[in-house]
């Protein structure tokens, strides 16, 4: 049955593509910020795949600030009336563009033929299919509530993998007493917000996360539970070394890799640093969910948003590209390198490493249970203006500007002012 379905799908797409293929040169122009190292070569897989189908790939890489520079370039291009074919985008940026009316393409034909509705988790569809129209092809799912731990440091100090928040704090304390850095952290707003995602989950679970971070309910944002969240942040702040501010996350990971620090809370892209340093998951380093957040997954997903094209050749190429992105082969090949997991839950994860397998399994479970939640720290819980307003408060609190009660109050004010 399944095989039949897939066959039907590919035939349908092939037909779709063929009808337009004859008219114009097929070409996609892709704006993205996977500009260096492994992730760029991973994207090359997609490029070669498309080239094999006779589609020219015009690359348009613009890095900087987690896509901020690329978004500025995109605005310039759209204003110039010269939108790229496909643009890498995250979370609420997609919805903001969807609101701009007719600038985005419609992928429903491809999606229907390939049954995206079934295989892509609903939490992602909130972004790729607003108002019932597919406008984007999700590439991967990163999750942010991970702890990366140096196994030899833990073994040396006789620390077991912590299972609850209190055990985690006890473990951190033990490391700190030994003279090593307990928590490797870089003081940049997005890194603090990444930790904050987990602190919210560990305090009030998925329901509280939904209420406060996604629904932006003022009572949840300013209530007693939020004060506890900030208390947890203050706890963690106590385990960070003095030089944390401004540090790149890579250097924080390097501290864990070099036995200088025991733990880092960071999204699954951190795995790449460990693997690159020749470390083996399970043997040299451990990956586990932030204690107290098990069963929940906060995610951010990279998607390629398709912009409306007038040229028929480009329209056809765009659809082929969307279909190629969702092909199981690309999903595996890409995510193996990127450290994330496939955006569709029906592909086999056998080729991934242990952390990747674990991540895939937990993602599927969370998607099933409804505890797959958009990460606030990475723009998947609320719009950019709100997110940045939250960053301001979280960072100010983490740097000692507010106490926890004031921070919760300020959070309500900041979110209100940004809306």
């Amino acid at each position, binding site marked *: 049955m399944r095989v039949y379905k897939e066959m039907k799908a590919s035939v349908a797409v092939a037909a779709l593509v063929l009808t337009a293929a004859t008219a114009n040169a097929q070409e996609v122009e892709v704006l993205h*910020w996977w*500009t*260096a190292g*492994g992730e760029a070569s991973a994207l090359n897989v997609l*490029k070669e795949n498309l080239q094999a189908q006779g589609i020219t790939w*015009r690359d348009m*890489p613009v*890095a900087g600030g987690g896509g901020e520079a690329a978004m500025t370039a995109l605005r310039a*291009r759209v204003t110039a009336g010269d939108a790229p074919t496909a643009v890498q985008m995250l979370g609420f940026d997609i919805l903001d563009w969807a609101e701009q009316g007719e600038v985005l393409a419609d992928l429903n034909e491809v999606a229907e033929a390939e049954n995206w509705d079934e295989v892509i988790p609903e939490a992602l569809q909130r972004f790729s299919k607003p108002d019932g129209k597919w406008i984007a092809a999700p590439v991967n799912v990163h999750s942010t509530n991970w702890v990366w731990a140096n196994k030899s440091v833990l073994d040396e100090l006789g620390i077991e993998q912590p299972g609850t928040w209190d055990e985690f704090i006890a473990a951190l304390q033990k490391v700190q007493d030994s003279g090593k850095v307990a928590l490797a952290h870089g003081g940049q707003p997005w890194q603090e917000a990444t930790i904050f995602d987990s602190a919210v989950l560990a305090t009030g679970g998925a329901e509280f996360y939904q209420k406060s971070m996604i629904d932006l309910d003022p009572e949840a944002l300013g209530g007693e539970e939020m004060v506890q969240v900030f208390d947890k942040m203050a706890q963690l702040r106590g385990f960070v070394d003095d030089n944390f501010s401004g540090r790149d996350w890579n250097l924080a990971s390097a501290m864990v890799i070099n036995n200088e620090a025991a733990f880092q809370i960071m999204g699954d892209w951190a795995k790449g640093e460990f693997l*690159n340093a020749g470390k083996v998951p399970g043997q040299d380093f451990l990956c586990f969910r932030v204690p107290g957040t098990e069963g929940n997954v906060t995610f951010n997903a990279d998607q390629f948003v398709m912009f409306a094209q007038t040229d028929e050749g480009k329209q056809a190429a765009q659809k082929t590209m969307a279909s190629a992105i969702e092909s199981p082969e690309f999903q595996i090949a890409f995510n193996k390198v990127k450290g994330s997991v496939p955006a569709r839950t029906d592909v086999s994860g056998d080729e991934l490493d242990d952390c990747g397998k674990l991540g895939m399994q937990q993602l599927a479970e969370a998607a099933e249970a409804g505890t797959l939640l958009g990460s606030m720290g990475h723009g998947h819980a609320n719009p950019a203006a709100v997110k940045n307003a939250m960053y301001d408060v979280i960072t100010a609190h983490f740097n000692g500007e507010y106490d926890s009660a004031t921070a919760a109050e300020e959070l309500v004010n900041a979110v209100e002012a940004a809306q």
Partner: protein
Amino acid sequence: MSVATQDSAVRTGRITRTFIYVFLIFFALFYLLPFFVMVINSLKPLGEITGGNMMALPQDWTIQPWLSAWSTAQIGVEATGLKPYFINSILMVVPAVAISTMLGALNGYILTKWTFPGHKILFGLMLFSCFIPFQIVLIPMARVLGELGLSGSTTGLILVHVVYGVGFSTLYFRNYYAAFPTELVRAAMMDGAGFFRIFWRIMLPVSGPIAVVCIIWQFTNIWNDFLFGASFAGLNAMPITVALNNLVQSSTGVKEYNVHFAGAILAALPTLLVYIVAGRYFVRGLMAGSVKG
């Protein structure tokens, strides 16, 4: 230009001289420090850097990072290194500098030797344009480039740089030509020499010093521009600063700091070269024109 090498008449004692040398050398070291950090880190393997040894000299000297940054580093989906973008930048900088300098020279000539009522106001308006924050022009400029069909092209970038460079070059040439005896121009006019002939035969030959200042200034600014390059350049026009930024700023990838530093120095080579080669004429040019106010 013998004045430029003329020595000061001030006499100084031995202690004062020692102090002066110490002061000068201290600042030389201060200016060199960041560059030193970049060079030593570009010559060691990545492991040595992330191993925590960032300020020390390399234990294993290697030029691999330089080769990688120039020709094999991954920039976007292509593993081309910085090489093609270097060429893009040259193709953009040379015409942009030439045109804005030429326009500046003509404007300066007109605003001093062919004045007409209102010329001061026009100059004031052009001068103020040097000082606007460029971020505000991004969106409307994108629109204009789109209308002109220049979006994403090198030509479009050249246009943008000429537009925002012409104010400074006009300032330089105007101040320089203001000191040039107008009588000579008048005499040439009497002899029947026309507008362009006077410019070509009389003004240009004496413009060497200020042209050097103007070219250095424009070259540095345009070569180092990131904002316009990132916003308006398509793939075939992308300048080296944007490529360098792509190389060093990947957000969730592994950071190869040694390659980043090598790339940074490569990207800076042309401007460094311009300063070192033309630097001695720079002070002369400043002397001749712009600082006299």
